[in-house]
């Protein structure tokens, strides 16, 4: 069993190396089959490990360098349920998008598959490592693979521009993380997460600790796309190939949040824990701003992939709220929410990809009614929209309910309302676009809509429009949606997750496990949380999203007075927020530096 741990990272990397050596004369299907088999076996490895880790968490020391006297010489992988759940999700999404790309690209060699497998290995290493510097190495490996995958459609200017913005901003984020690591290493002389945690615990909170923490948080905020570090995301999502978008939206961003939780709970809890109340306020605030801004940007989009990009920003904000509550129940809720929501958004991207494959466009107005020939994809797309709104039994409602309840208990009663409003605002444009594209609802194409994306910027990823949609494409989309749905049907999901979350948030237990090989006590399962209220809220949110979508489609029919008041009250907010997203990478860098300064100022003022 233990030997599966290194294999979960080594197998995808070796498979990538072997695939690169495969002769170009191989038929295309050879590359496809090999890559799918490799990613699939990694998924099996991760699920076996996940099942094992819920019974007994494990550690694996590379090179046989076991820690001596609490000092780690070598590198360690830590198998605990939360990390493995994310690793399994990553493997599942990579497998799904490789299956999907089977018919998606008309021409492709082996290079795409090679990078996808490297990307997978990096994500799994990132999830499982218990070493601070390895975390950075896999962060970089993931990013380098992601840059090239994002720019895969080189023939298109927007694609390279998006990939370039992505690379520039994320490299600055990586620089921040590395600087943070250097500061922490300078103080503690250690790189093992658990060892650093023990070394920092009880130390005074000084400039070095605060600066290191700010740099690390800001660097991972870039990756997670938290406002104002998020600007790269919509440009990249709009231009990246669809199978890659699935990975970005489903797992890549939330791994940034995972890294923040890992960083805080293994290393900084001992030194910053006394100021948790202030820290909680800052994180919840940052999450709320991100959620609202992302939601505001969703509404005016007509480019469907860009719309889904902004919905990712918005939902990342909600996950950050859950994470920033610093409590096991909220963390369990966040994990459920980000996994099920990631699957839903992944599925929506796959549906958008089917549109591209079929119609060569993902422009909501340009495709008005053109999707009538693929109603099944339309149904999946609408279901995805309802999943975003948190309609039961999609797992999304479970996560949202847990976060909301816990937030109210900790003195943030408004969080539930905010999350419902934000899910409605992100789901409604998806439903609107779906109803218009697949059924031709709403006024015709002459209808004048203020929008972000003018016309068809997107080059098709396939050379010409296809007459038919290969079943594998919508089957993949349905599978992602199905898993998210099934997750919500597991009756005691939160109950099972809370002990795992408690383990994740227990610095002492983590250090005992890693440095001393002590297996943590099996925590008793807490009594089941009633989710009825959350389910009712979910139904209400879904209905509200449908109403909002209808308003979006037929708002010309509303009385002029109501229309005017909507325009007057919301117009400036939309316009102002839109103007910030200029596409100029220099603007993005400027906002990033301001973000670091503001974050630093806030933390220095409250913690120092």
């Amino acid at each position, binding site marked *: 069993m233990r*030997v599966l741990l*290194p294999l979960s990272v*080594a197998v995808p*990397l*070796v498979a*990538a*190396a*072997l695939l*690169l*050596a495969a002769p*170009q004369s191989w038929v295309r299907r050879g590359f496809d089959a090999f890559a799918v088999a490799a990613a699939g076996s990694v998924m099996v490895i991760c699920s076996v490990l996940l099942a094992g880790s819920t019974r007994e968490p494990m550690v694996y*020391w*590379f*090179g*046989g360098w076991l820690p001596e006297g609490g*000092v780690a*010489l*070598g*590198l360690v992988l830590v198998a605990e349920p939360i990390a493995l759940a994310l690793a399994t999700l990553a493997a599942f999404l990579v497998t799904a998008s490789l299956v999907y790309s089977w018919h998606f690209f008309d021409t492709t*060699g082996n*290079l*795409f598959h090679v*990078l996808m497998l*490297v990307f997978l290995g990096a994500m799994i290493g990132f999830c499982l490592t218990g070493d601070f*510097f*390895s975390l950075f*190495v*896999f962060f970089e*490996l993931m990013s380098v*693979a992601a840059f*090239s995958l994002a720019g*895969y459609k*080189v*023939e298109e200017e927007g694609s*390279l521009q998006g990939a370039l913005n992505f690379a520039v901003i994320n490299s600055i984020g990586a620089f921040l993380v590395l*600087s943070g690591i250097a*500061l922490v290493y*300078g*103080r503690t*002389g*250690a790189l093992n997460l658990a060892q650093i945690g023990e070394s920092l615990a009880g130390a005074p909170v000084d*400039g*070095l600790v*605060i*600066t*290191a923490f700010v740099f690390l948080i800001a660097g991972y905020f870039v990756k997670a796309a938290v406002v104002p570090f998020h600007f790269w995301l919509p440009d990249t999502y709009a231009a990246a190939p669809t199978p890659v978008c699935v990975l970005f939206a489903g797992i890549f961003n939330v791994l940034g949040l995972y890294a923040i939780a890992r960083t805080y709970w293994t290393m900084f809890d001992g030194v910053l824990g006394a100021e948790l109340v202030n820290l909680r306020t800052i994180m919840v605030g940052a999450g709320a701003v991100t959620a609202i801004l992302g939601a505001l940007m969703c509404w005016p989009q007509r480019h469907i992939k860009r719309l889904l990009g902004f919905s990712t920003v918005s939902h990342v904000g909600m996950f950050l709220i859950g994470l920033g509550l610093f409590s096991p129940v909220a963390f369990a809720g966040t994990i459920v929410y980000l996994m099920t929501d990631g699957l839903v958004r992944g599925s929506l991207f796959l549906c958008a990809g089917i549109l591209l494959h079929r119609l060569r466009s993902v422009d909501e107005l340009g495709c008005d009614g053109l999707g009538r020939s693929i109603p099944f994809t339309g149904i999946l797309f609408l279901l995805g929209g309802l999943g975003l709104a948190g309609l039961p039994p999609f797992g999304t409602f479970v996560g949202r309910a847990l976060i909301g309840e816990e937030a109210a208990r900790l003195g943030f009663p408004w969080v539930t309302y905010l999350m419902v409003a934000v899910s409605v605002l992100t789901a409604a444009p998806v439903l609107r676009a779906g109803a218009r594209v697949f059924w031709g609802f709403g006024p015709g194409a002459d209808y004048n809509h203020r929008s972000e994306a003018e016309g068809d910027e997107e080059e098709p990823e396939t050379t010409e429009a296809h007459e038919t949609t290969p079943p594998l494409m919508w089957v993949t989309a349905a599978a992602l949606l199905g898993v998210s749905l099934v997750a919500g049907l597991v009756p005691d999901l939160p109950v099972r997750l809370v002990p795992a979350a408690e383990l994740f948030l227990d610095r002492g237990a983590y250090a005992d496990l890693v440095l001393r090989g002590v297996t943590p006590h099996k925590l008793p399962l807490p009594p089941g949380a009633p989710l009825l209220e959350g389910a009712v809220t979910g139904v209400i949110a879904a209905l509200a999203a449908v109403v909002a979508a209808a308003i979006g489609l037929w708002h010309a029919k509303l009385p002029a007075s109501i229309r005017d008041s909507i325009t007057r009250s919301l117009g400036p907010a939309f316009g102002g927020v839109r103007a910030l997203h*200029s596409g*100029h990478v*220099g603007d993005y*860098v*400027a*906002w990033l*530096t*301001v973000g*670091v*300064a*503001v974050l*630093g*100022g806030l933390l*220095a003022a409250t913690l120092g």
Partner: protein
Amino acid sequence: MSFNSRRNLFFLGMLGFGVLYLWGLKGLPDFGRYEGVYGITLNKVAVAQTHATNLVAAVTFDYRGFDTLGEEFILFAAVVGVAILLRAQRDEAATADEEAEESKDESRSAPHTSDAVRVLGLALIGPTVLFGLYVVAHGHLTPGGGFSGGVVLATAALLVYLTGEYVALRRVSPESLTELAESVGAGGYAAVGFLGLLAGQAFLTNVLPLGTTGQLNSSGTILLINLAVSVEVAGGFSLILAEFLEQTLLVRERKHG
């Protein structure tokens, strides 16, 4: 955002960033007062445990060998990424119409290589390869190793181009060969990891005989990993070189030919 407001915003942010950074740096130990437990422990035990006199190599290829595997794959991914991003440009150049080509041609054509460069380049190829191999092979003894030695080896490929012609470079490093080197180098490192598993030990355990400290044939898998890394690095850099040259030279070659 206008240029001025962007600049002001940036410098405002940088001011905050700079103050924060200085505040953080102030907390570091004073110069010369090193207290890092990791470094002190390794200095005591590493030579005895790994038989490598270059402690950097002992750390990167043994204690933290898994990190370095990740780093090697960063280079691997970057090289594959370059190949991906430059692939269509090549088709594009091949189909570009003649007129657009003429205008590009001026900026792309290089002056004729002088005889001095050719002779000196030719003379340097042998020593460069030898030096590269030396740096690679002595990585566990003295500063150097697979990463730096691999780059030196790739310089030899550049010298071939300088001395002869692009065609000659393609002959000594065809794309399939450089890709194979990439693959063998990266996969070889991972294979050393599996060696540990086969011996019933942990992944990347140094299971080969460690030899006598200070000898060329010592330090077990560290030497082997250095060789694998050098193949990967040399192959990767040659591939990048060839990809970029192809971009530039395709047009020129067609004009002359």
